[in-house]
């Protein structure tokens, strides 16, 4: 049993080493989509507001690369990223959106206050589409190429520095 005591000590030392290593590693808290590189699952969402059409997977495979923004009127960072979505739209991006668990009048009020850069807005009351494309929160923005394949995922609100990254990804996807 003599060796057993030294094994305990060695195991403890190995454990401490692992802890020390992991403490120095930056923690990636984001949940990345497993759907990147995959074709977007089939869906068909009704319009979220009267003045924009709804969104279905067919629209995302019409040959033109697009940005797909997942947002909600009750989400504060979604309001924060609105100016940058407007800049993306001004730069020629076609942006479509999915409104998560939202009431039409709230979405309309939100778009009135912060601008409406979206060509289509689907109404996703049970987060079905959001979950099927591997998004775990709002806001998130996806780059979808013309064949409906998910190319890139941006987690969280779009900061000023993210605009050029998203435009580059969009160009790469064939826009």
């Amino acid at each position: 049993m003599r060796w057993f005591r030294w094994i305990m000590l060695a195991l403890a030392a190995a454990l401490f080493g692992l802890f020390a290593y992991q403490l120095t590693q930056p923690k990636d808290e984001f949940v990345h989509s497993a759907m990147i590189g995959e074709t977007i699952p089939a869906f068909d969402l009704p319009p979220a507001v009267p003045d924009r059409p709804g969104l279905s997977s067919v629209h995302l495979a019409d040959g033109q690369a697009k940005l797909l923004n997942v947002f909600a009127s009750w989400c504060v960072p979604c309001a924060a990223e609105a100016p940058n979505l407007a800049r993306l739209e001004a730069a020629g991006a076609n942006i479509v959106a999915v409104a998560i668990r939202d009431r039409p009048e709230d979405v309309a009020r939100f778009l009135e206050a912060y601008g409406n850069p979206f060509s289509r807005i689907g109404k996703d009351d049970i987060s079905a589409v959001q979950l099927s494309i591997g998004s775990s929160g709002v806001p998130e923005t996806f780059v979808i190429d013309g064949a409906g394949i998910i190319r890139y995922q941006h987690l969280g609100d779009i900061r000023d520095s993210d605009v050029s990254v998203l435009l580059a990804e969009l160009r790469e996807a064939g826009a």
Partner: protein
Amino acid sequence: MIAELGLAALWIAAALAGLQLFAGIWGLREGGSRMASLVRPAAIVQALLCALAFGVLLLLFIRTDLSVALVAKNSHSAKPMIFKLSGTWGNHEGSMLLWVSVMALAGGLIAFLERRLPERTMIATLTAQAFVGLGFYGFLLLSSNPFERLSPTPAEGMGLNPLLQDVGLAMHPPTLYVGYVGLSVAFSFAVGALLTRQVNPDFAKVMRPWVLGAWIFLTLGLTAGSYWAYYELGWGGWWFWDPVENAALMPWLAATALLHSASVLASRDALRAWTIMLGVIAFSMSMLGTFLVRSGILTSVHAFAVDPERGTFILALLVLNVGGALLLFALRAGTISEGQRFSVLSREGALVVNNVALSAILGIVLLGTLYPLLTEAFDVKVSVGPPYFNPVGAIFFLPMLVVLAIGPLLRWRRDRFERIQGPVVAIAVVGLAVLAGVFFIAGIALLPLLGMALAAAVAVASFMPLRGRSLRRLPLPVWGMVVAHFGVAVALFGMAADTAFQQERLVAAQVGDTVEDGPWRVTLNSVEPVAGPNWTALEATLSASYKGGEPRVVRPQARSFWTPPQETSEAALLTRWNGQLYAVIGGEAEGGRWQLRLWWKPFVTWIWYGGVLIAFGGLLALIGRLAGDLRRRSAKEQIAVRRGTAAP
């Protein structure tokens, strides 16, 4: 000024811990007995100062003194008083102060009360306690000062996380902490005994009530925590194998093993080195748990304020304390003689099996908890959950239950199987009958089936030690064992029954709809807004009738707190002796419908009744031991008086 008083008390207490450490080290050397006489007073005064510091923080929270950063961050003037109080420990800094205070109080108590061991061993023990304590004082004062001021004083506080605003959780951390930190005494005793090479039955007898006390609190803390998660999170589960739950379970497993091996050492002078090692391991698991929870190194549903700097600090303490103690053990364990021998078929033999099984389960839980961390180092993300813990743990848990049923029937040292044949056959018949009965009637999954059969067998077996003994003259610790083992059976039955027979319904119901869930018929009568002191809610009124009986009304709520803004669901529970109806109201679905989630959970409450019984058994044993110690002490004094010498 009052916050500064608390801070000053804490600094002086830390200085006294330093004094205790140096006086102790000095005192352990040749001719250092004058320095050694400082150790006990230092420990006692330190305990009083820590109690003062904790009292000051409580007072600051009661007054909602927003000029203190911690209060401003975690409290709010509109909060009910009980949650102002529980806000004291519902945060990182306050809970670390609680940790240090409990540790100082435990050290002060042993310094004040314990005189049975050789003084050198006591000095070594208190020195070890001071060493561990000093590290945590440093952590508290240098990186987690609870008394820090905030300037300018804000007009209002930020409030306490709503999930924590709950009576169950007001009590859960203090009980768990007393248990966690109480184990530090076992750790210090083990180190003290190793340093002075005094590992003998006396050492185990002195250590045992401390382990028992800490273990009672750990048991209650785990039970309360499990019940809190069950009804507050609104997920209907009572154990999630979450890293933080495991962090609390691991010290309990080690303490349970330690409790049993200390009994062997106390009664039979066997398992010396093993008991020492468990003493070191048990508190190491407490510290490991604290590290995992506070460093944020693992992702958990328990979102504590995490900070890598704090993680580094605790890791350093972990290396010093655990690494040091294990090194000392590796160096010294060879000098501990093996102790008395015993045959495999004996009470000691059964307790060794129990110890090995508990340690194996501890290893399994530890591996499962840390495995994601290990693979992450190689860029592989995995999550380990019930499909690993349940079946792999069961490999050791189920045989352990068999031994738990039979072990108490065996005699110490050596026994013959023929002697206990009768009761063993009776227990086996009960177990197999339940196994066959449940299998043919219900046809449930393997693990709950075995769980039910073993629950029945253990329930019967737990009362077997009472056979042929005068119930009135039976020592209290034996009663404690009977009650605790019966509690294991009760809890196990609850777990197995809930797993096997739970019935869940998720519906979108309109007002006036009736939903059936198992034997229940539940009608949604209305959904109305209600308001509380710091929240508003949508409250559903449900009338539920069990098997067509008189309907009873329950009101689950979907609450929105505004400081800080957060949604919680307040489940409504209807408790019967044979289970609970668990109702959760969700958001509004389309067309005026409401998401309604119902669970019928047969015998689920037995899990917590079992937990309370286990703790109560521990309490009986503790009272029995303490009463026995007092009797022996007064008898010794009488003898000493008769001999004409002074009482020791």
